[in-house]
């Protein structure tokens, strides 16, 4: 049952990634792309956790946590850049 659920969810998340990539490509504005990138990171977390379930390993947790942290940092940096072209001032 779980395996089926995992397969279904993989398909769903895969579709989500595809849609997000469309937004990334279409834009039209830079904030749209950043939002898409941020979403992509979260999608990736979902993917990692699901794959962890699939492989029955607890070892993907750190990677997922790191994805969350680094995705956030990336978004912050990109936004700060667009607000004032300066990340640290």
């Amino acid at each position, binding site marked *: 049952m779980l395996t089926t659920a995992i397969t279904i969810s993989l398909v769903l998340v895969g579709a989500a990634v595809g849609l997000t990539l469309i937004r990334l490509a279409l834009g039209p504005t830079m904030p749209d792309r950043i*939002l898409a990138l941020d979403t992509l990171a979260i999608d990736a977390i979902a993917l990692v956790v699901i794959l962890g379930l699939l492989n029955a390993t607890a070892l993907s947790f750190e990677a997922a946590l790191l994805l969350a942290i680094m995705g956030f940092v990336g978004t912050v940096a990109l936004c700060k850049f667009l607000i004032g072209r300066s990340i640290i001032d």
Partner: protein
Amino acid sequence: MIAEAIASLLIVTGAAFVLLGSIGLVRLPDIFTRLHGPTKATTLGVGAIVAASSVAAYAVNGDISLRELTIPLFLFITAPVSAHLIGKVALKDAAARRQN
């Protein structure tokens, strides 16, 4: 068995929410409306998936692992900040567009 069922339900629901966020991202008309999708749906979706992982781990080992919950916790803390920042950029962007 029940745990596995719960996990299955959670994971599919979560994945659905993740997809929902991305559908919003594509379908909604402008950046401010699009912001709503990922900040809410996707974050919650991940929360559900992680919860599924916890439950599944319980189903397998019998251990309650709270470790995974740190991920949605972190996301719930940071998502508003991300949205806030992207919103600010969008405001600035919109202002710049109006000027031109």
